[in-house]
């Protein structure tokens, strides 16, 4: 009865408020119903020679990701004729808005692509299965995956999420543009410091170029904190990882200077940019750099149709801020009735060389060293650059932070709102720092 109640409330809220994306939702409602019955009829020990099994696999992404993922699914189905995979995919924002009601209705897909900012929300609330027994039994083969690479999916020692590929923050630049501005590019493995880089601002501005469009606050403020030896969130997730507002003030004073001098995109334009590779300012040739996760490089250099380079993202003093991040994870729903089949599909995605010749590192550099080596000859020059950069970053980074605590999504939204108030000069940096710390701590205090 509770299930019914929650489904109805969620449904009525959705219908009452937004009739958006209905085409997709209808499909998924159908899928959910179909797999519910199929799931219960399948035995718990589904193997390739067993009865028919239906596995629902959900992910977010752009069109190219949908295309090759469907292809990989086809390949998998050919190898396992008894398995039917029902794909459910959406763009990032819609994905989470669809997943939450599904969780409430106990109808999560069997395989769920997971993001770090939501991992704790789902794992901590008992929605995800612990994968440790499967890695121990070898059903999920992690023999070629480094322990540090796995660590990003662990909470309290349990492996809830399988890293689907590795990423590192990077600064993408257009060497030809830098040259035409008379800017000397640092050695590929050295990079600039932020101060050195910001010093180029006036020179760029004189030619009508920006330093960058913006630095995502939920990514770069924590990155800055790491450089100062602090973390964004306290280890137990009940408050922020720093108490000294000076850190916030220092960082956003600098940021505001860059903004006020016109080194970055103005907020009114930024709020309308969709963040697609085609709109990327380096691709368009209007900014010196684009600071992003390394897997974005493929899309952006394809949009640019020019040779772009990857540099380390500027550090502050050292690069101890840099870390390898799982680009995304694969997780298995706790409510899944076909866990074995779900695990087998993830295993195929992670370890199968033929599958990865189709995936080609689009979800981040493959975590299996065997797969990495095997597919290298198949890579385009751009993909090779990404693989090389991540290999370099692996040696020049430190361990990543534990996954964000419950409430982090709200804290990220709060940070963005406070920074907007600062940049629009509604409040001072000092006031923003204090407001952010107090409100964020209040949100996180609910985790006690």
């Amino acid at each position, binding site marked *: 009865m509770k299930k019914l109640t929650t489904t109805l409330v969620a449904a009525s*809220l959705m219908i009452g408020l937004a009739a958006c994306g209905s085409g997709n939702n209808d499909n998924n409602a159908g899928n959910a119903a179909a797999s519910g019955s199929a799931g219960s009829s399948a035995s718990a020990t589904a193997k390739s020679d067993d009865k028919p099994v239906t596995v629902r696999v959900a992910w977010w992404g752009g069109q190219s990701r949908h295309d090759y993922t469907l292809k990989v699914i086809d390949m998998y189905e050919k190898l396992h004729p008894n398995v039917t995979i029902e794909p459910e995919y959406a763009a990032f924002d819609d994905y989470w808005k669809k997943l939450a009601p599904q969780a409430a209705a106990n109808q999560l897909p069997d395989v769920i692509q997971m993001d770090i900012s939501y991992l704790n929300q789902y794992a901590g609330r008992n929605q995800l299965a612990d994968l440790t027994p499967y890695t121990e039994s070898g059903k999920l083969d992690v023999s070629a995956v480094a322990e540090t690479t796995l660590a990003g999916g662990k909470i309290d020692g349990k492996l809830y999420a399988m890293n689907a590929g590795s990423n590192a923050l990077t600064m993408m630049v257009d060497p030809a543009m830098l040259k035409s501005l008379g800017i000397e590019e640092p050695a590929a493995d050295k990079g600039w410091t932020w101060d050195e880089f910001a010093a180029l601002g006036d020179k760029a501005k004189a030619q009508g170029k920006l330093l960058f469009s913006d630095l995502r606050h939920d990514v770069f403020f924590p990155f800055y904190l790491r450089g100062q030896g602090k973390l964004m969130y306290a280890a137990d997730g009940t408050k922020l990882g720093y108490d000294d507002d000076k850190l916030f003030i220092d960082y956003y004073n600098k940021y505001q200077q860059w903004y006020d001098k016109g080194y970055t995109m103005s907020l009114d334009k930024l*709020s*309308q940019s969709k963040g697609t590779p085609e709109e990327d300012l380096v691709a368009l040739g209007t900014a010196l750099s684009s600071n992003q996760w390394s897997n974005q490089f493929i899309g952006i250099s394809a949009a640019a149709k020019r040779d772009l380079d990857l540099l380390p993202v500027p550090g502050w003093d050292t690069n101890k801020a840099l870390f390898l991040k799982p680009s995304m994870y694969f997780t298995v729903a706790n409510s899944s009735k076909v866990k074995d089949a779900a695990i087998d599909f993830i295993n195929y995605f992670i370890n199968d060389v033929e599958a990865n010749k189709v995936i080609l590192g689009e979800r981040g550099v493959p975590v299996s060293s065997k797969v990495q080596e095997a597919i290298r000859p198949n890579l385009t020059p751009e993909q090779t650059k990404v693989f090389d950069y991540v290999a370099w970053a692996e040696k020049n980074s430190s361990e990543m932070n534990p996954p964000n605590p419950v409430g982090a999504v709200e804290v990220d*939204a709060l940070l963005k*709102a406070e920074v907007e108030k600062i940049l629009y000069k509604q409040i001072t940096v000092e006031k923003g720092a204090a407001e952010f710390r107090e409100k964020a701590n209040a949100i996180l205090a609910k985790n006690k």
Partner: protein
Amino acid sequence: MTKFRENNHLVGYLFTAPFIIGFLIFTMFPMLASLYYSFTDYNLFEAPNWVGFDNYKTMFTGDDQYWKSVSVTFTYVVASVPLRLAFALAVAMLLNKAIGGIGLYRSAYYLPSLIGGSVAVSIMWTQVFGDKGLLNSFLNLFGAHATTSWIGSPGTAIWTLVALSVWQFGSSMLIFLAGLKSIPASLHEAANVDGAGAVRRFFKITLPILSPIILFNLIMQTISAFMTFTPAYVISRGEGGPLDSTLLYSLYLYKRAFQFTQMGYASAMAWVMLLTVGIIALILFQTSKYWVHYESKGES
């Protein structure tokens, strides 16, 4: 058997049963469930805990964004509803003329309302009011060098939503048009003979006779304006920005519910919204006796 046939009530209930059952399952029950959840900390994932009036207390005393969304919503309603009605009435009067091809004009003016609330139109609106949009291009024809994004600036974003709402005047316009048709031409002719000008006839004849229809449109449009969601969601890409300047109440509710998965809080917000809109509709009804004119007054 005879008893069954004579029992009119039972047949009536049988015929209305599909509606009653549907209403109970899909309207009544979810409403009561949401009332219950508004007193809990329900987060979609875990069983709800009873927290009494905590959600309501936080909403009224500890949430700046909530009050921001209330003020944005009232600005939107107060600005868009009268403008939209005035515009609808003006166009209805134009289209009330007997000229050739009037049917075509009426369809053309109604068109924006047919597609009005849709996502596609909202996306088009971002093209019109963006930094390289139609409006700026138009202004630049006169050498204005306009480069700001109207949708991206905190001072103007909400007004682009108001403009979008006014543009979708079609449905109220049709109702006004029907009302205008029902005004006997003889009244206008008689006033004309007595020497009343167009302005005087409008205020003394057209408006009073139309007033029940104005009341109807006013209440319907006010309610729907309070519930506006899609344009703000699409134009601010689900955020209500910049600086929360387009954070309409329903958008904030949606954010709380589906972005932060705080269903309890969102349910509480929904109930406050229901009560507020109810009270406002009641006030409008109460004021109507001072300005709405019914021809059948005293007869019924």
